[in-house]
């Protein structure tokens, strides 16, 4: 098991390096560059060149990359061009806010989604399953911004007005107020994510239920309850972990759109802001942070999987 973990760790490290390279390359294919952004369109060529030299933009690409990676690793995350603040501070704050949202959505999804998916797989083909499947179809097919706006319309509109339409309030100012600002964005995220998780849990469990060893259990005289709890679920848990890790990816994609709809000050909104303003230092770090979170989450999932599956643990 330890050997497996080490190998995965080495793999992850390599991927993180590649991720940083991709981020860097994607952005620096830019026609213009940071200097042009700062000085504007009408800057003189000399002024541009001076600033470029100051910012180190005239060095070869590889050197710029290495220098950037070096500063990231030592904790110097640069300064946002558009916000004029240290990137680390901004990212830290926004990341925390997004984490609240993500956590809220994940909790609901795990507590509600996995049992729902299990139920659907057990009642396969019957009315309950069909209803659940139909609902999930709709859930994955409606874009988050549509769901979000619909929720906004109904629950935050002038008629009901239960929730604020946008913005954010610090936890320190009061739990109720803070929670009220979280509900709608969290709900929107949850709906989309729930649909994904229910579908995948359902198909994972349905697959397990057709396995030969389930038949063995039946022929041993095991009751359906015992089959599900002792045999099926444990084996279905394995792919579920993979599903959850994968869903973190959906989550992070969805968060971008949802935060925009509700003007929620999180990482997603920050990324959009950076893209719109071509704020290279900010965008680079945001992308790196988001991708790293995903990579690490998958790594944790791999380890959990290996720990649970005796075929991997004891090989």
């Amino acid at each position: 098991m330890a050997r497996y973990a080490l190998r995965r760790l080495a793999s992850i490290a390599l991927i993180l390096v590649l991720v940083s390279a991709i981020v860097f390359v994607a952005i620096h294919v830019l026609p213009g560059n940071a200097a042009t952004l700062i000085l504007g369109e009408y800057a003189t060529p000399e002024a541009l060149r001076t600033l470029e030299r100051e910012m180190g933009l005239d060095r070869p690409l590889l050197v710029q990359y290495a220098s950037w990676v070096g500063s990231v690793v030592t904790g110097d995350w640069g300064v946002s061009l558009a916000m004029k603040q240290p990137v680390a501070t901004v990212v830290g704050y926004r990341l925390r806010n997004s984490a609240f949202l993500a956590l809220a959505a994940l909790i609901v999804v795990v507590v509600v989604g996995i049992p729902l998916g299990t139920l659907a797989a057990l009642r396969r083909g019957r009315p309950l399953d069909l209803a659940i499947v139909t609902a999930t179809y709709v859930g994955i097919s409606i874009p988050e911004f549509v769901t979000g706006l619909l929720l906004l319309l109904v629950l935050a509109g002038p008629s009901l007005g239960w929730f604020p339409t946008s913005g954010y309030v610090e936890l320190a100012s009061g739990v109720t107020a803070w929670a009220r600002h979280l509900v709608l964005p969290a709900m929107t995220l949850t709906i989309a994510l729930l649909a994904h998780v229910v579908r995948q849990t359902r198909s994972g469990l349905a697959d397990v239920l057709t396995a030969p060893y389930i038949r063995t259990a039946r022929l041993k005289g095991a009751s359906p309850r015992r089959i599900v709890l002792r045999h099926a679920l444990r084996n279905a848990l394995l792919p579920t972990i993979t599903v959850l890790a994968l869903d973190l990816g959906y989550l992070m994609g969805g968060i971008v759109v949802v935060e925009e709809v509700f003007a929620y000050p999180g990482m997603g909104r920050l990324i959009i802001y950076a893209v719109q303003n071509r704020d290279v230092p900010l965008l680079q770090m945001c992308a790196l942070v988001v991708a790293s979170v995903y990579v690490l989450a998958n790594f944790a999932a791999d380890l959990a999987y290996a720990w649970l599956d005796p075929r991997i643990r004891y090989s």
Partner: protein
Amino acid sequence: MTSLPPALGVGGAILALVLALSFAAPWIAPFPTTEQHMLERLKPPGARFLLGTDQYGRDLLSRTLFGGRPALGLGLGAVALGLVLGVPIGLTAGYVGGRLDDLVMRVVDAMLAFPSLLLALLIITALGASTGHALLAIGVANGPGVARIVRSATLALREAEFVLAARARGERHLYVMFGEIFPNVLPPVIVEGTLRIGFAILAGASLSFLGLGVQPPAADWGLMIREARQYVFLSPWPLLVPGTALAFTIVAFNLFGDGLRDRLGAT
């Protein structure tokens, strides 16, 4: 006579409808999409404007009919690009194996470490916001996923006995890859591609909603919803009409893809 899965039938029917309407838009739309009627802004459905008007008094029905075109074009184009990029890479990596496969898959894994929207955003940042760039961005973001699937299928087939027989015959590697392996990789690729169209349309609409895809004054579902946002409490129709169209189209593609997978998997 094997029965048609209902998903295939229903999905296919809706798709046919959507495609037909989008194609026929220039002939059946009652108003030009850019024509403004300032006295009839944000009206609900009525006799003149069958589905209501938006904040500039433009007819929602016409705009929605035309709005499918960039959405569909983006979705189909992006997936096509993803296939063009992903299939050769996956096929080669899976067939050649060894160091090349390791290297290519590491890069693919790294690209898959980004939520696909984020990858697309990075590319848009580099190139600037437009429909074409959105297509490129989503297409490139789709490539790695396709490559991965093609690679798995290729790996499985590489040791198949008919492939080994071909190699024992002295067939050239290119023939084995494209003449023997590829035709067997095609069915899962088709299914995968069809399933991805729905998500590509969703991604394209999301980009347009964020202002980074289709640009005004074009008619596009995602863009229309973006514009409808400020006025949603004044009139829900500019949100509901394109939103419903978008949802229906994506559901249809997903249904069709699932039905196709059942159908092809059963043979």
